């Protein structure tokens, strides 16, 4: 009995699963892995919150209370430009995280600045769209459909705004403190957040604008 227990105690579960080619497993995971995993859990919970807003929008899509519907309101050319800006910013954000791993300060700051500009362009177009809707009498108080529209798209806009503040903080921190291990972890989390916002935007332009404008 004791012999079999001892025999199992020698088997490292990670080696059994075949990753021993990368070297033997040495204790708990590094802080970088744990931080990334924890932030990934946060992003997933954020996505679940968004899914509640999406469900609300989908349920209320037809409840226009005699007011304008998506077909009357949405300008798909505007949405395409917004999408292009956000996609490009996701790409430059990826370039920034490569630069951070290479510890290249200049390229990191350039890529982050471009990401910031693309993000601001996205927010400007969205703000102008909201302003023009309110000016046309299609504000969030007009119908249940428009309330759901403004909360869902506005929530995404708030996330992008928070992301831009975080982006500027990271630029300042790299400038002041360099690529310390804790700064690198924050850059990793920021990149995850920014890419996740782009994933949510895919759902927004598909469900809200493209499907919504067919109503």
């Amino acid at each position, binding site marked *: 009995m004791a012999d079999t227990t001892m025999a199992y105690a020698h088997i490292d579960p990670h080696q059994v*699963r*075949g*990753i021993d080619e*990368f*070297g033997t*497993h*040495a204790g708990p*995971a*590094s802080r*970088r*892995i744990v*931080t*990334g*995993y924890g932030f*990934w*859990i946060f992003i*997933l*919970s954020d*996505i*679940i919150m968004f*899914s*509640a807003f*999406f*469900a*609300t929008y*989908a*349920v209320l899509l037809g409840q226009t209370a005699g007011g304008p519907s998506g077909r009357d309101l949405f300008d*798909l050319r505007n949405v*395409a430009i917004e*999408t292009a800006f956000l*996609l490009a910013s*996701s*790409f430059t954000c*990826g*370039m920034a*995280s*490569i630069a951070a*791993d*290479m510890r290249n300060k200049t390229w990191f700051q350039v890529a982050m600045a471009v990401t910031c500009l693309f993000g601001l362009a996205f927010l400007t177009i969205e703000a102008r769209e909201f302003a023009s809707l309110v000016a046309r009498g299609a504000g969030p108080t007009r119908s249940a459909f428009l309330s759901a529209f403004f909360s869902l798209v506005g929530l995404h806009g708030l996330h992008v705004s928070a992301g831009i503040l975080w982006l500027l903080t990271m630029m300042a921190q790299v400038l002041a403190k360099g690529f310390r*291990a804790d700064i690198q972890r924050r850059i*990793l989390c920021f*990149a*995850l957040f920014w*890419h*996740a916002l*782009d*994933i949510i935007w*895919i*759902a927004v*332009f*598909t*469900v809200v604008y*493209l*499907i919504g*404008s*067919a109503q």
Partner: protein
Amino acid sequence: MTHGHDDAFDRTDLAPGDEHVEGGRLRLRVLGYVTGLGLAILLTATSFFVAGTNLVWEPSIPVALVVLAIAQMGVHLVFFLHITTGPDNTNNVLALAFGVLIVLLLMSGSLWIMANLNHNMMPMDQIMQMQR
């Protein structure tokens, strides 16, 4: 990618969005992002084209749009967030699977229940009559 344990980032040290490089891997990593960007642009352009075209049978358009969106989310997860099926990524994939399950339950459950309620609700003029 070396086996050096003095390196702060071991090969097993991979989190979502994280992929450590040394000089030689730089091109490969940039190429990964370029591939992702190209695929994403292709899928987005297709989505906008399908939404505005008369060439496609109309009732199929929403289904096509949802499929294209899911495909593009997959592209973003693989090329930008680096969610892979590797043994170092099991935890991330499992968390993602659980998140997707909750999202599906929430969305389909809401739509199903609300459509059912809507279907069973008495027409508004009859409610008015009863209140009189």
